[in-house]
């Protein structure tokens, strides 16, 4: 648990962050107490006054912990602003690995003539887009041409096997 001082320094920010989420409403299906930002501020307002006068006032720690519970995830997020207890990493745009775009040949291309499977480690964790000769492929194996992809192991298979001169695109998405 953070110290009382850290809780109190984070509370005003948590109130702002909670207010931001409340204003988003239920757009993303979240459930949030519409009074949460006010509750955080009201609780903070009282505790801060008492704490400033006597940080060891009877019951102050229980009150601060109660405030911390009220703040919930917004208390954690607030630490990114105050620096107390670490910080929240900023959200960075996803950067999928570069696609493999090649023409099949007998020896040097990413997949060579006659090859029908390949472990693509760089794509593990992603979904796969397979375009063959300019035609997007599917995983429906009742069709004449299809592929399979295991995003956990990175194993890619295709049918039929690669044929020299085919234009291939393998992209992580």
């Amino acid at each position, binding site marked *: 648990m953070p110290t009382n001082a850290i809780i109190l320094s984070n509370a005003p920010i948590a109130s702002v962050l909670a207010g931001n989420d409340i204003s988003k409403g239920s757009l993303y299906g979240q459930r949030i107490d519409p009074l949460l930002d006010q509750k955080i501020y009201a609780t903070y*307002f*009282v505790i801060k*006054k*008492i704490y400033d006068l*006597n940080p060891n006032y009877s*019951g102050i720690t*229980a009150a601060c*912990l*109660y405030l911390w519970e009220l703040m919930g995830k917004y208390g954690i997020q607030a630490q990114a602003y105050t620096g107390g207890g670490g910080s929240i990493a900023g959200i960075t745009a996803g950067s999928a690995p570069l696609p493999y775009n090649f023409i099949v040949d007998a020896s040097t291309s990413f997949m060579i003539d006659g090859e029908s499977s390949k472990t693509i480690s760089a794509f593990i964790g992603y979904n796969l887009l397979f375009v063959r000769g300019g035609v997007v492929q599917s995983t429906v194996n009742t069709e004449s041409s299809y592929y399979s992809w295991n995003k956990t192991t990175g194993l890619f298979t295709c049918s039929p096997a690669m044929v020299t001169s085919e234009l291939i695109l393998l992209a992580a998405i």
Partner: protein
Amino acid sequence: MPLTPNFSTSESLSSNNLVTFSDTSTGDDILLTSRRISILLANGKWLDTGGVESTTIVYHTWAIGDASVEINLLTKSTVGLVTVDWMTGAVDTYTKTILCEWDLYDYVFLFGLLSTQTSYPARTDNQGYWQNSFKMITNLFQSEQAVELMDDLYSSQASLDRNFYMISKQSNFF
């Protein structure tokens, strides 16, 4: 160097009825013999010890040798127009008047509610509890702003009186 009179007050957190007056004057006047304090309330009465209100002016003695004096003044959160006189014999040589607020009764009450909330959240975590807490806090805020920004004794005390009503009828509100 003549005296530039000044003072400050503080309320005890552990005993909200006690107010300490501290002399923060600069300079010196060796002829001074005593100090006295008077406190005018919003209702036009004067505050005596124990929260008693008087229709005639009441002076609280403050010995000139004491840097501060603690007086049992309050029974509820109060705003008062405090005048301190620095006396030379019977002559009022210097005077300083400051609008002072002592509102810890309200804070301690709200903190008590909060302590109940920490022990029994289900008992008090309802809309009425929060709504009335917000109201009390808003009153406190208004009262403090009326003193700090507006120098308005009446508005400030009116805000505290709204809280006092809620405290005295607390079973109806919390």
